[in-house]
């Protein structure tokens, strides 16, 4: 059965099933959300107005049997935070269940005429709308619990907390995990507000009895997924008891700190004296000591074999929060001068409940601290800011708008944003390569926009050379293109480690995609297809009014030297302009 587009009109409370048009048929995941947004959303529209849409799409292989670590769901729309196109993806239960219902994408458009709130239930029998005024004002922990009480078969729950209801620019979209906790977020860019505008509090997906994912070439798919699985289970970082499994993404905290590249106290220094206390190693120690449900052996979706997630327990071993990612622990910890992992965990739980992106939330508090609202390191004060947001006080609404609004409110010059989105946990003055990606990404400052070490794929020297003077513009573009491709597959970005180190893994990834889709995809197509996605996104942004002058890091990074190396951002604008110059040349 051919996959369908489910178009949901919230103005009329009507859902229609459409065939996937030829122009979109090559794409899934990020490629599909961006293609639909480009075709159907006016780039100049107001992100919170009636002409924006939310598009939800699983990847090519998501939901296919035994494809390892392939449960990503892409969410797309025009971002209220950046004004750019946005794709933000998440783990959790949603992607596989949407795919198993034979759905290529869900498009949610329109706005309720009556200002009421709805849940949308999608199953093999179709789409049902229900008015859910009783859910308004509730956080995602309660919403997830209520949805599992109401619906059978442990469905996926995609939802927004109070931040999305208030249409705040830092509102993320929550996806529940296998334990029905709301720790998986399509967090960046404020798409939770766009969902709120549509009057959708929750989308519940039950795949029981669905047709499943059609496999075009079962032998090729099986061959590919076996190669990929072998590579993941063999590689030092992704195998059982490898770095990601043992310490999660927060394995990076101490390394980045030792290198002098850990943004600290609102990007005023590159090292934090309390980094070790909030690192993955410290989290693992606490988990092991407390026992109970605490574990570092946690998949964020069924079938993940990397298991970089964890469940952080309270002192009695009861579940408290999942997951303390590196960027989360950094944003709410080092960047606010807070070295207490318990407060970092408490604030993470607040973000998960209210529906906030942890990176933007931590940066927002740090900017407010820089503006004198709190002292750096004031963990009690930082924790209380979430009450302000949850209650929707005027101050809380400013915080909920993210870094740039908060910086204006408090008169702060040190504003670590690009295109309105705040930077993640890597200081571009110390780690200059990432700065090129921050500046030029179609998404605003984003560490996942240029994730993979693509030179090996692209043939830039065959192997990674840490001393290479290779053009940083070309390198960043290749990173961004390879990442855009992986964002289409539905695979977790962390497969990048094994597939780039182990040739069979790379081949297996491409074969699994070709096996599911029937497309003639090989490793040689990755960069070209990734660039197609980037071009769509870049042209949308240009039509929205963005120019090369928006591809810049903030002024203070050229003015202020970052300790301990006392370095400034010195990258020439010409280098940044080169990254996307090809868009109008090809």
């Amino acid at each position: 059965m051919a996959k369908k587009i489910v178009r949901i009109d919230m103005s009329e409370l009507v859902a229609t099933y459409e065939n996937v048009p030829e122009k979109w048929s090559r794409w899934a995941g990020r490629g599909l959300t961006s293609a639909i947004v480009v075709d159907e959303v006016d780039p100049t529209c107001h992100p919170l107005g009636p002409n924006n849409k939310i598009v939800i799409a699983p990847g090519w292989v998501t939901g296919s049997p035994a494809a390892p670590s392939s449960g990503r769901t892409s969410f797309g729309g025009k971002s209220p935070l950046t004004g750019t196109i946005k794709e933000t993806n998440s783990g959790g239960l949603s992607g596989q269940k949407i795919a198993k219902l034979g759905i290529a994408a869900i498009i949610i458009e329109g706005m309720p005429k009556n200002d009421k709130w709805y849940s949308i239930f999608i199953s093999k029998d179709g789409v049902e709308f229900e008015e859910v005024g009783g859910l308004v004002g509730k956080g995602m922990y309660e919403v997830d619990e209520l949805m599992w009480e109401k619906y059978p078969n442990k469905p996926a729950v995609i939802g927004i907390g109070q931040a999305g209801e208030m249409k705040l620019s830092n509102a993320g979209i929550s996806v529940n995990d296998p334990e029905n906790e709301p720790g998986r977020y399509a967090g960046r860019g404020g798409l939770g507000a766009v969902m709120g505008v549509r009057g959708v509090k929750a989308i519940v997906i039950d795949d029981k009895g669905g047709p499943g994912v059609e496999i075009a070439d079962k032998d090729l798919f099986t061959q590919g997924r076996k190669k990929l699985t072998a590579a993941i289970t063999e590689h030092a970082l992704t195998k059982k008891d490898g770095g990601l499994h043992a310490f999660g993404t927060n394995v990076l905290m101490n390394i980045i700190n030792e290198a002098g590249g850990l943004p600290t106290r609102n990007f005023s220094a590159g090292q934090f004296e309390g980094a070790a206390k909030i690192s993955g190693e410290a989290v693992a120690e606490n988990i092991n000591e407390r026992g109970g449900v605490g574990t570092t052996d946690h998949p964020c979706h069924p079938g993940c074999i990397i298991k970089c997630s964890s469940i952080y327990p309270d002192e009695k071993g009861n579940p408290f929060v999942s997951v303390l990612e590196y960027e989360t622990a950094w944003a709410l910890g080092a960047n606010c001068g807070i070295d207490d992992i318990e407060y970092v965990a408490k604030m993470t739980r607040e973000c998960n409940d209210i529906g906030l992106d942890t990176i933007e939330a931590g940066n927002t508090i740090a900017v407010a601290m820089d503006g004198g609202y709190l002292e750096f390191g004031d963990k009690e004060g930082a924790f209380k800011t979430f009450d302000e947001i949850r209650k929707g006080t005027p101050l809380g609404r400013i915080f909920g708008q993210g870094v740039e609004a908060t910086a204006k409110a408090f008169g702060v010059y040190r504003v670590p944003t690009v295109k309105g989105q705040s930077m993640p946990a890597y200081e571009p003055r110390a780690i200059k390569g990432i700065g090129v990606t921050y500046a030029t990404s179609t998404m605003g400052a984003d560490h996942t926009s240029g994730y993979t070490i693509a030179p090996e794929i692209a043939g830039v020297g065959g192997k990674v050379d840490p001393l290479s003077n290779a053009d940083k513009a070309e390198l960043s573009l290749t990173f961004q293109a390879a990442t855009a491709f992986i964002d289409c597959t539905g695979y977790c970005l962390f497969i990048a480690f094994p597939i780039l180190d182990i040739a069979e893994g790379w081949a297996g990834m491409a074969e699994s995609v070709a096996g599911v889709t029937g497309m003639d995809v090989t490793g040689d197509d990755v960069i070209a297809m990734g660039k197609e996605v980037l071009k769509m996104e870049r042209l949308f942004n240009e039509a929205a009014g963005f120019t090369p002058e928006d591809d810049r890091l903030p002024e203070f990074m050229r003015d202020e030297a970052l300790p301990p190396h006392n370095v400034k951002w010195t990258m020439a604008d010409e280098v940044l302009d080169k990254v996307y110059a090809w868009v109008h040349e090809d």
Partner: protein
Amino acid sequence: MDTSSHNNTITVNTALYGPLAKYGGGKYIAEINVALEHGDKIEDLLKYFELPPDEKSYLFINAVLCDVPGLYASQRELLHDGDHVGIFSLQHMWPYQYRDGIRMSDSLTEALEEHGPIKNTY
């Protein structure tokens, strides 16, 4: 007065991360002030901890990257009083794009030039 010089000893603050922490008496993190002699090098520090060099991956001295997995460029680095050394295990990852452009020691720079591009450098 420089008492460390007077006593012919230096103090090097050392952090051992992940599985290496066991060499410093910790489970996942060990931070210790180590007394060494003037003229001692990284190789002497590793001997102090009885840490096999092939178990170290990234190694920093005062926020400068001095070694990477599979190389031993830091062995002859001279240590000074008040230095901070951070040593990571082979279990630690560091994706390339998150270290592209960071500060490296001359010894590591030379070693990488001699060795050529390295793989498995996550």
